[in-house]
């Protein structure tokens, strides 16, 4: 089957009305803001530019009725204009081939090798070398697919630590990717923390999928101010502002002689993060730059 893709560009005020018109003939619509604004003071924040047009798309089956449906939609859109709603663009029509959407999104997701660690999507049958360790992981609703430089940087630094200790703390575990890699590299047990319920769920599910659920404990929340227990290795792939805030607590939870791997630091804020960690008594052993992202390996003397 083929589809006709109907697209209309319009002002923010007419998005609902245009969606309603397209929704009369299609099972739903997709809305794309054509311009996003990045916040210079927050490297993670993005918002829609409401003064820019929005693009609304719907699909109808390309069958003998399609022409009539397109015409009726054009008429309905014309009525919107007539009612004085903000500018509604021309209806653009394009034929698209049907696809197995459940499969197609997987294209472009390949196994990734970071040193000895291989991140393998569940649908791939990847050969793992004798010196390599595999973590099975599908991209999903928690950060940490192995595609981002911060994850890769932390995975690289993890392999510079030497033999994995029996106990590890992972602060902001996301998908659980760092925790699972640490276990595959020889750690005995990883305690994971994340403030996001979805990440907690994902860490558990991924631990289960890798047969490592027995060695992973997950809790929703943040790092307490005082440590009831300390760790020889802490993984903290967070973000600059949170690392600065948590610096004293990370130091508090680290055993003397222990290692902290800190990631998610945008290059321009690396100085600020290193200063905060230094002020908490941690010494920088290694800095790894990948594009605009920095990962750090530190130790507590």
């Amino acid at each position, binding site marked *: 089957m083929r*589809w006709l*893709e109907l697209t209309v560009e319009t002002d*923010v*005020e*007419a*998005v*609902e*009305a245009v*969606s*309603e018109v397209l*929704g*009369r003939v*299609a*099972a*739903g*619509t*997709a*809305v794309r803001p054509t311009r*996003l604004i990045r916040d210079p003071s927050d*490297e*993670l924040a*993005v918002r829609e530019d*409401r003064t820019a047009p929005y693009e609304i*798309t*719907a*699909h109808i089956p390309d069958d003998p009725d399609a022409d009539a449906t397109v015409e*009726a939609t054009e*008429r*309905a859109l014309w*009525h*919107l204009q*007539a*009612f*004085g*709603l903000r500018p509604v663009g021309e209806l653009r029509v394009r034929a*698209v081939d049907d696809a197995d*959407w*459940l499969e*197609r*999104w997987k294209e472009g*997701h390949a196994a990734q090798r970071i040193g000895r660690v291989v991140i393998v999507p569940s649908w791939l049958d990847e050969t793992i070398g004798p010196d390599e360790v595999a973590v099975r992981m*599908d*991209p*999903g*609703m928690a*950060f940490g*697919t*192995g*595609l*981002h430089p*911060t994850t890769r940087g932390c995975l690289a630094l993890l392999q510079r630590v030497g033999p994995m200790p029996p106990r590890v703390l992972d602060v902001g575990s*996301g*998908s659980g990717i760092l925790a699972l890699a640490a276990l595959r590299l020889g750690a005995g047990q990883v305690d994971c923390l994340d403030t996001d319920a*979805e*990440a907690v769920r994902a860490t558990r599910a991924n631990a289960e999928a890798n047969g490592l659920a027995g060695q992973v404990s997950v809790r929703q929340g943040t790092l307490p101010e005082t440590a009831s227990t300390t760790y020889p290795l802490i993984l903290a*792939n967070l*973000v600059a502002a949170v690392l600065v805030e948590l610096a004293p607590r990370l130091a508090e939870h680290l055993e003397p002689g222990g290692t902290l791997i800190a*990631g*998610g*630091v945008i290059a321009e804020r690396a100085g600020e993060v290193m200063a905060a960690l230094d002020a908490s008594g941690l010494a920088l052993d290694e800095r790894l730059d990948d594009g605009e992202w920095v990962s750090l390996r530190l130790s507590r003397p």
Partner: protein
Amino acid sequence: MAKKIRTVLKVQAPAGAATAAPPVGPALGQHGINIMEFIKAFNERTANLRGYVVPAEITVYEDRSFTFVTKAPLAAALLKRAAGVELGSSQPNREKVGSVSQQQLREIAETKMQDLNANSVEQAMRIVAGTARSMGIEVRD
């Protein structure tokens, strides 16, 4: 984790009944997002709104992980319920299918204000009124 945003997009799909067919498949697929994970979560979260088309706002991160929030049903659906009509008019300038009061318009605008990206209730009311007119639903003075 350092969740740097790649893009944001929205889909409007039938509550509790989204599938990988368009619009969801192509919209998410082009960003390499795990479609099955989205569909399962969307249908779970919107199961109690069956019968409505519900917008979901999806945030795609640079590593192709994503999160999403669902919004109130489309204003069009709320208008149809308020006016007690099944379908919008195909000739909204000539054929009126029903009407809503200013008070109903304001209530819908308030429900939808956040989702509509409106800066004020008045702007939200204007947007909802535009949708109403385009459906052949009159707004009574």
